[in-house]
C-alpha cells in the first residue's frame, strides 16, 4: 500500500520472484484477483517491479499488456520503489480553500524535494493526493501511515523534523 512505508528492509531483488510466486499462488483463485494481488505484491516489495509482470500475467492467464495496463492506470501502484518515507499533501478543493497550495509549497521546501518526485538521497517521496477524507479539518496530509489534519506551517515543520530525525 502506498500508505505504508515501503519495505526497504524486505526481500532482496533476487528474492522477488519467490515472493511474487507465493503471492500469485495465494490470490490466483479469487474472482477478479489482479488488484488484490498487485496490492499484495506492492505491500511486500514496496513496488511492483517490471520483472514481476510476466509471472503475474501467466499466473492469472492474462497478457503482460493487460497487467502492465492495470499497473499504469492506477495512481496507487508504483513501478519504481518510493523513498523510505512517503509524504502526501492533499491538493483537492477543500484543502485549497484552507491554504493547501501554500502547504504544498512549504512541504517541497521543508523536504527539499520536488512534488511528485523522490529526493536524491532516497529518503522521501512527496506526492499530491486528492482527498484523505479529512475535509472538515483542512488542510490535511499523510506521512507514511499517519494522517495529519489542521496542518499549519509550524505543525508541518514539526512533523517533517520528527520524520527526518526518525530516518
Amino acid at each position, binding site marked *: 500500500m502506498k500508505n505504508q512505508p515501503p519495505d526497504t528492509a524486505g526481500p532482496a531483488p533476487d528474492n522477488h520472484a519467490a515472493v511474487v510466486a507465493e503471492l500469485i499462488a495465494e490470490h490466483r483463485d479469487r474472482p477478479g484477483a489482479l488488484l488484490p494481488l498487485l496490492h499484495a505484491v506492492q505491500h511486500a516489495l514496496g513496488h511492483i517491479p517490471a520483472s514481476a509482470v510476466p509471472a503475474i500475467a501467466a499466473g492469472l492467464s492474462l497478457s503482460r499488456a493487460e497487467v502492465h*495496463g*492495470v499497473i499504469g492506470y492506477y495512481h496507487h501502484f508504483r513501478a519504481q520503489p518510493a523513498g523510505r518515507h512517503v509524504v502526501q499533501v492533499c491538493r483537492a478543493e477543500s484543502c485549497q480553500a484552507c491554504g493547501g497550495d501554500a502547504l504544498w509549497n512549504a512541504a517541497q521546501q521543508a523536504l527539499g524535494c520536488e512534488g511528485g518526485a523522490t529526493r536524491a538521497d532516497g529518503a522521501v517521496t512527496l506526492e499530491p493526493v*486528492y482527498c484523505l477524507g479529512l475535509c472538515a479539518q483542512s488542510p490535511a496530509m499523510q506521512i507514511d*501511515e499517519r*494522517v495529519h489534519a489542521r496542518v499549519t506551517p509550524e505543525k508541518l515543520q514539526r512533523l517533517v523534523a520528527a520524520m527526518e530525525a526518525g530516518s
Partner: protein
Amino acid sequence: MSAVKVYLPRDASALAVGADEVADALRLACQSRGAAIELVRNGSRGMAWLEPLLEVATPGGRIAYGPVAVEDIEGLLDAGCLQGAAHPLCLGPTEAIPYFARQQRVSFARVGVIDPLSLADYEAHGGWAGLRRALAIAEGTGGGAAIVQQVIDSGLRGRGGAGFPTGIKWKTVLGAAATQKYIVCNADEGDSGTFSDRMLMEGDPYTLIEGMVIAGLAVGATQGYVYIRSEYPHAFAAMNEAVARASAAGILGADVLGSGRRFELECRLGAGSYVCGEETALLESLEGKRGMVRAKPPLPALEGLFGQPTVINNVISFASVPMILADGPAAYQAFGVGRSRGTLPFQLAGNVRFGGLVELPFGATLRELVFGFGGGTRSGRRVKAIQVGGPLGSYVPESQWDLPLDYEAYAAVGAVLGHGGVVVHDDTADMAKLARYAMEFCAVESCGKCTPCRIGSTRGVEVIDRIVGGSSNRLQQVVLLRDLCDTMLHGSLCAMGGMTPYPVLSALDHYPADFGLAVPQKDAA
C-alpha cells in the same frame, strides 16, 4: 469502585489531530493515579473542530470535553473529569451540544455512540432488528419482493450522488434471472469535501453490513463486495475486522442468523482512481481491470459484476436500509420534502469554522448549514462561493443559499446535491483558478474511454488559460469554453466528463469578474 467508561474516537479525523497520543496519555495518567477506566475507541460524533473529543459516562449521561490535547490530561483529571466535573474544556452533555442536538441522526444514529466493532454494543443499540425483520418478511408469502417493496415505499434514493430510487434498482435485479447475483457497495468516496462513508465505516460498520445482507435477501444475491478507496486505510481495516467478527458470529456466511440463507461479504481495496467511484468503472476495477467506464445499457442491475445482475449502491444508501426495515418505510418517508425523502448526512468542509457531519432531513438551506451550523468561514472573511456535491458539483452563489437542499430544487438551478459535500470558500478564492482546476482534475482522472472527457478536459484547461491570460479575443474564448462544456455535458459517457462543466460554468456564470470579464448588472456575485 467500578471502572469509569470513557470514550475517545478512533475515527481518522481524531487520529489526525493526535487522538492516539491522548489515549496513551490518559491511560498512563489514570494508571498512576489508580483511577480505573474502561476506554472505548468510538467513532466520531462529527464535530470535527472538537476532536479529539473525550466523553465520560456519568449517571447523568455522557459529558464531553474537547478538543483535548496531551497537555490537558493531568488538568482534566485534577478537575475531576472522570466524574463529569467542570473544566474549561467541558462542553456539557454531548447530546445537548447545539450542533449535535439540532440534527436528525438516522443513518448516523449509532456513530460516535457505540464501540464500532462490538457486536454486543451494536445489538444493544437496535442492531440487526432490520435484518431480523427482513428475514421474517422473506420467509413469508411476499418473499424478497416484499423487502424490495419496503425500500421502494420509503422513497430512498441513491446517496452516492445520482439520486436514483434504490428500491427500483433492487426490483430490476430481483426480476433478473441468474444463478449468481451480487451486492456491491461503492465506498470509493473520492469527492473532496466528503467523508460520510468513511465515518460510517469507521464508526458503525455493522450497519453497512446489515444493509447489504438485507439487499442480498431481497434480490437473491449470496455474495457481496465492499469496494473501499485506498486513501481510507482506517475504514478498510475497520470493515475487514467487522466482516470477520460478523462471519464468526454467524451473521454472515452460509446460514445468516440461522435462517439457512447464505450471504458472504468481502472488502476490496481501490487503487487511487477517482473515476472508479462511477459504478461501471468500479465494477471493472473489481473484476481486476483498468477502471474504464462501461457504456450503458446494459445496466449493472442486469449485467453488472462478472456480467451478472448486480445491486450497486453507495455506503449511505445501504446504511439507511436497516432503519427502513426495522421502523417501517413510513418512518423514513416522514423525513424530507417533495421527492427527496429521508435524511442526508451533509459534510461541512473547506474554509468553515465548525466543520463536520450534519445529518438533516432534505429541505434545509445552505445558509442554515454554512452559517447556522458552520459559523461562517474559519478565516473570518466573507463567504464567496460554496461548492455543493463534490468536484463535479456547482459553485453556488449567495443568491441561491436559501434554496431548499433537495434533489429537484438544486437540479432546477443547474446544481446538484451529489453525495452531500459542502465546501466553503472565502473571498480570497479565485474562481477562474478553481474552474481551471476542475478541468485539470478531469484531465488527470479521465479514464480515457470517451473523447469529450479525455480531450475536452485538456482543451478546457487551455481555453481557461487563454481567457485569464488576457487573450485579445477573450469573448470568443468564452464562447468556445461554453461550446466545449456543452459537448462534454451531452457527449460524455459518465459524470466525470459530463459534470465537470458544472463547477466550470457556475464559476463563469456567477463570478465573471474572476475571469476578467465584465460583470452583468444584478449578478449576486
